[in-house]
């Protein structure tokens, strides 16, 4: 490491981190598609894809090859620029959000302290919130550009839905932030060290509830998958997409889902801290705890999809505005009161 300037070290580390995170996420994405299909199949007493490779493990590769070689289609009346740009915007915002989230405990190497996180921002959570609010553009652009009424309706639905649930999502953060007194995600994670009773999922249970529901809606997973409800809107905003662009949109969706799961782990489930006190710290590395929690949440996502029916649109809206937001606001008031009293 000698002979390198500080700036060069920073750049090098950043590049490595970016490559690592993107690589892992891409791997997770393809893995997730397989796992989701298999799990859903099991839940429905089917087998799912099991022909490609052992246990069908090569299925994602086969899918990738298929998508690469399919013909690119664009409707004649489509708005070219927006049609081409939409998947880019979607995937870009998805990956930007990933940048500020820590994925494991800090560790020492090469005489420096490292954090598995691309950028450790002071306003990390706020930044994340900002980026996630941009995520809607990809979908709206995709829906509008195709010049297809199903797409447009899907895009509109998606805009309204994300708009509504983003509010409760943001409000659910506030209680957590109040407790930690910081926007830095690492600080929030550290506040939950010591045992599962310190986890925000327990301490901030209403916020956790609101977050779980709003996050589901935010990534348009069942039971909130109205923007792409097959039975009503063909395939929603990506009806007209095919080939790699379709893959990009799909990828953005899965990355968002993973981001949400990782964030839930960090904000509510104690991050990389083991929930049980008294365990030897060296026994199981924090990263393993972290991955296990993320995996659990992802499983729950799939489980929900296999179990729950879809909301009706007006129910979705009134639930978001009339139940979730008031609940989140009440939680904020209570938390703020407790924090203020405790400080006195």
């Amino acid at each position, binding site marked *: 490491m000698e002979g390198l300037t500080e700036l060069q070290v920073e750049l090098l580390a950043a590049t490595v981190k970016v490559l690592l995170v993107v690589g892992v996420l891409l791997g997770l994405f393809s893995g997730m598609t397989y796992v989701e299909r298999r799990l859903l199949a099991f839940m429905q007493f089917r087998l799912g894809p099991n022909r490609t490779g052992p246990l069908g493990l090569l299925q994602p590769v086969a899918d990738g090859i298929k998508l690469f070689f399919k013909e690119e289609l664009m409707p004649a009346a489509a708005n070219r620029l927006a049609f081409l740009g939409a998947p880019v915007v979607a995937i870009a915002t998805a990956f930007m959000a990933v940048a500020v989230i820590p994925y494991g405990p800090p560790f020492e190497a090469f005489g420096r302290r490292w954090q598995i996180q691309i950028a450790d921002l002071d306003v990390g959570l706020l930044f994340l*919130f*900002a980026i996630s*609010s*941009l995520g809607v553009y990809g979908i709206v652009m995709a829906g509008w550009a195709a010049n297809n009424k199903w797409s447009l309706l899907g895009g509109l639905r998606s805009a309204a839905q994300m*708009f509504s649930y983003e509010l409760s999502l943001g409000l659910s953060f506030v209680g957590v932030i109040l407790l930690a007194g910081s926007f830095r995600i690492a600080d929030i994670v550290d506040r939950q060290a010591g045992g599962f009773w310190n986890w925000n999922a327990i301490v901030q249970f209403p916020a956790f509830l609101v977050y779980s529901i709003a996050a589901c809606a935010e990534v348009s997973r069942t039971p909130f998958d109205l923007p792409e409800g097959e039975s009503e809107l063909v395939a929603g905003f990506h009806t007209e997409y095919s080939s790699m662009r379709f893959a990009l949109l799909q990828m953005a969706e899965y990355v968002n889902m993973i981001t949400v799961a990782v964030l839930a782990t960090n904000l509510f489930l104690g991050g990389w801290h083991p929930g049980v006190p008294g365990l030897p710290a060296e026994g199981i590395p924090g990263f393993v705890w972290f991955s296990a929690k993320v995996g659990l949440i992802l499983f729950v996502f799939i489980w929900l999809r296999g179990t729950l029916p879809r909301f009706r649109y007006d129910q979705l809206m009134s639930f978001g505005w009339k139940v979730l937001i008031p609940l989140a606001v009440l939680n904020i008031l209570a938390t703020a009161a407790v924090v203020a009293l405790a400080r006195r």
Partner: protein
Amino acid sequence: MDAVLFYVFAVLAVVNAVLVVAQRNPVYSAFCLIAVLCCLSAIYGLLGSPFIATLQIVVYAGAIMVLFLFVLMLLNVKREERSPGDGVRLKAAGFLLCAVLVAQAGAVLLRARPGGTGAAAYDASTRRMAEILFSPYFLYAFEATSVLILSAIVGAVVLAKKEL
């Protein structure tokens, strides 16, 4: 590095702003405006105001412009039709006055001594912002904004709803 980024974003902002105005299609205008807002957010960041930069994205790009796009799509707004001789005099007068205004203000700017100290200890952290925002100077204004927003919500619902 920062300086370079500043000029890159400044040029991007100006180009996109021109596109906002020059477009006939409102949807394109909206997309360009979003680009301008993002560039401004970056510039705020470069000027050392991370809170405002984030807020710019959350409020402007993430909320206001989504609303614009939503309305544009809801109403299915088409390109502006070109109609011959439409308001040429107005446009000319507007152009002239804008040019004069920019020239005047530009003259002020160029004449001014580059004085700003750019105070060395510039702490624009979120905590600092919160302290100022909730100080007695701004607290009541801050509380008043909540009333403003509430009335705006009610007003918007009343105006836009077909029948109450």
